[in-house]
Each structure stands twice: as C-alpha cells, then as structure tokens.
C-alpha cells in the first residue's frame, strides 16, 4: 500500500521530530508508487498537537512567530478583484479557462479612459489589488499602464512570450506547463521556456508558475534547475479542470500524490528558487479540492454579501461587466476539482480562525500566507518556512 507505514516513536521526541520521521517514511513509501496502488488511502495521519486548547496569545508568543504574524497581517487590507483584459491571445492551450464558457464572447473595451474610470470606481468601492488576466494581457500594454497608474498593487497572468513594459510594477505570473516539448504539445508554442526566460530573467516582478498536470510531474525539476540558473523564481499551481473538461490533464489521486512529493522535494532542494511551503503542497494536492477543504468564499460559491470576498470580489469580463453567479478567480473551473494557486491564496488565507488551533497548524498557515504574499505582492520577501513538515488541513487527513 502506498504511503502507509508503521512508525515507532521515542517517547522523548517532540512533535516536530516525530513528524519529520513520518515525512521521511511517507516519502520513502511514495517512491515506489504505481498506478495499481493509486486507490490505496494512507493510514498515517500527521495531525498536529490537538491534545489541548491553545490560546492565540500562546501561538504567537514565540518571537519568530509573532514577527511573522505581524509581517503578514499588515497586508490584511488587500481587497482583490480580477479583470479580463482582451479576448485575444498569441497561443491556444489545451484546457485554457478563458476559452471556456461565455466570457470569451464579451465585447472588448480597449479604450484606456474606460479602464481608468473602472479602476477609479473600483478604488472607490474599496478594491486595493487587481489581478489582470485573460486572455493575454501583454497584448494590451497601454491598458496595463493605465491600471497600474490608478491601482498600484496587483499581478498579471501572462504566458510570458511578450515582455510587459518595465513601468508596469505589478507582479508578473508567467505560466509554465512543463518543458518545451510539453509546451509544444499542449500549448502549440515553440521554445516557450527559453523565450519566457529571455524576457524575464532577473526581473524582480516575475514569478514562474508551474502548473502541474499528470503528464509533466517528471519535468518539473528540469524546469526548476533551468530557472534557478537564470535567477528566476518559481511557484506551483495545479491543473484544475474547466467545467466539462474530459481531457488528459485532469488529475487523479495518484498524480496528486506524486505532485505533492515533487513539490516537497523541490522545496527542499531549491529553497532559494521555490516560493512554496509544505502546507501549500498539502492544501493543493489533497484528494479533496479547495472548496471541500476550506469552503470557497468567492461569490460564485458564497451568497453572503456582508463581508469578505462575497462582498467585494468581482470578476470583470472584457466588456467591463461582471456576473456574480460566475465570479471567482478562474471562472468556468469545475469547483469540485479546483486547486488553483490563485483560489487558495484567498480561500486558505481567509481561514485564519480555524488554523489557530495549535503551533504547527498555525505556523503552517503563516507559511501559506507568507508564500502567497511573496508570490502576489511586489516587494514582499518570503521568510523561511516556520513549519517544515506537512500538517493536515483542519478537520481532515493529510491526503
């Protein structure tokens, strides 16, 4: 059985030592993972200390933890919304979210003054952070300049084939779907990684976002090495199927486990290049999706308009309109399969209260938030992970 192990403990061991041993055993057990064993569920849970109730003041009593808490809470003012910029793209990828559903047919508003007015209106209703996405924002640089001038914090999701002007000071998320052979197959683009690196090597705005599919798990180390050689940073995403998608990119329980192991291995081997945490790996490779684990708070799944994302989040189409029923960070994703890095950044982060149960779980949450901020906020530097081992999401098993 995959990832099942008998572990004996020395009574004198602390919980962190025990978990480190458990992790080694799990990694070793997973090395021999086969398709035939994919239906096996692990018997081992690496739960945190839940033997007593911890006060919040105790959880932040350690100076290092308190500093991290104070560091991340300074960003609680972030209120995001997302915007499709254009219906054009310079490549066409298998499984692309933008070209699912109706949003691809929306009229394209290319008038910079219309975008300026939208940004000003967004600011007036409390939005402090913008995510500029579909289909390919680098094709409309004049709009990016306008948005940045009005709203200084944000991120752009791009395929990285066309360099975004230096004056646009947003974080730039460059999508990577494997090595260049895989990109040619899935995205119909030649020399993709080489061109992305040429555009963004050494650019402090850039974070390469490696989207794991069942097919490209074995390529991620090669890509990470290459990015490290060129002074680039990488974080991880999980392919989450669009509604109705039946292609080969949809994850299986086996591929999720393999992905988790790859993430943890790379985190250990390339700590200066990989922006991630052990808990990020757990949250995004669990057999349950983010909604089942944490309860998605985007309007698409959350009817409340009183507070939080349900109140403030909007996803604008290229016609500058939005639809509450479709509003989430990546519309047209199958919610049951959603493990998007973008979704987790809001959904996991929002669940502060339920993670404040014990030191490991709280520290794991802090690592998750620290990672999210380093990936999404210009100038935010990630600190070392406080919790070095995977802990389960509150109320669930590790896998």
């Amino acid at each position, binding site marked *: 059985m995959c990832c099942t192990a008998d572990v004996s403990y020395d009574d004198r061991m602390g919980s962190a030592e025990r978990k480190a041993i458990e992790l080694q055993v799990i990694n070793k057990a997973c090395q021999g993972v086969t398709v035939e064993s994919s239906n096996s569920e692990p018997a081992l849970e690496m739960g945190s200390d839940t033997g007593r109730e911890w006060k*919040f003041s105790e959880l932040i009593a350690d100076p290092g933890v308190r500093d991290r808490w104070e560091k991340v809470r300074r960003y609680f003012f972030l209120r995001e919304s997302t915007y499709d910029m254009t219906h054009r793209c310079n490549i066409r990828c298998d499984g692309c979210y933008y070209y699912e559903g109706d949003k691809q047919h929306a009229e394209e508003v290319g008038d910079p003054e219309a975008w300026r007015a939208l940004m000003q209106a967004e600011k007036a209703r409390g939005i402090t952070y913008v995510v500029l996405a579909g289909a390919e924002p680098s094709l409309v640089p004049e709009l990016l300049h306008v948005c940045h001038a009005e709203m200084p914090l944000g991120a752009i999701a791009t395929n990285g084939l066309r360099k975004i002007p230096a004056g646009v000071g947003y974080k730039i998320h460059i999508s990577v779907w494997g090595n260049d052979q895989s990109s040619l197959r899935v995205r119909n683009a030649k020399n993709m990684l080489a061109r992305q690196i040429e555009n963004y090597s050494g650019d402090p705005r850039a974070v390469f976002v490696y989207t794991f599919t069942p097919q490209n798990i074995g390529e991620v180390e090669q890509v990470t090495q290459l990015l490290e050689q060129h002074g680039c940073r990488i974080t991880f995403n999980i392919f989450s199927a669009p509604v109705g998608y039946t292609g080969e990119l949809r994850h299986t329980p086996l591929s999720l486990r393999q992905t988790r192991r790859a993430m943890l291995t790379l985190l250990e081997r390339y700590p200066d290049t990989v922006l991630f945490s052990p808990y990020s790996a757990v949250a995004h490779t669990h057999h349950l999706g983010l909604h089942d684990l944490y309860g998605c708070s985007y309007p698409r799944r959350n009817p409340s308009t*009183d507070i939080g*994302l349900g109140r403030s989040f909007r996803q604008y189409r290229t016609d500058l309109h939005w639809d509450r029923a479709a509003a989430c960070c990546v519309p047209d994703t199958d919610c049951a399969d959603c493990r998007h890095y973008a979704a987790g950044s809001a959904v996991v982060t929002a669940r502060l209260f339920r993670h404040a149960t014990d030191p490991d779980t709280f520290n794991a949450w802090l690592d998750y938030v620290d990672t999210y901020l380093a990936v999404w906020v210009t100038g935010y530097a990630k600190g070392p992970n406080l919790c070095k081992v995977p802990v389960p999401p509150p109320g669930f098993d590790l896998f």
Partner: protein
Amino acid sequence: MAVETDLDQMILSIAQIMIDELKLEDVTAETFDPDIDLVDEVGIDSMDLATIALVLRDKYAVRIDEDDYPKLTTLRPISDYIHRKLSAS
C-alpha cells in the same frame, strides 16, 4: 479569570480590544459607537474580524463560528453574541 457579566461593561471591553487590534485612532472605548458599521464605516474585513475573534476567544473562552461573521458587523451584536454564549454556558 474575571469576565464581565454586564453587557455594557462587555461592550467597553470589546471596544478596547478592537481599538488595540485594529490600531484605531481618535476613538476611546467610551466614545466607540457600538452601532457603527465596522465594515462600511471602520473599514474592517473578514481577516480583521477573524483576528478579533481570536483575541475574544482568549479573553472569554467563547468561539465565534466563521459562519457567524456576516452577522457580526457592529460592536453591539458581537457583544451580544459573546454575552449570550457566556450566559448559556
């Protein structure tokens, strides 16, 4: 632990927690309007409310369920919520 059983005193105590945690200026516990909308007029969001909930859990040993946050957007219902749970326990 001494815990207020008087609702008015509890409102003052929770107001002080909010002032400290949210670093509010130009307001004291005594001048804090218990009916001011914390979201619309003070500008707090769900993360701030979660932080307040944790500090209140420490002080009163009362858990504020995440699902209840939308109902707790002014000081008065927060105080009522805590007071009611303490009275029931």
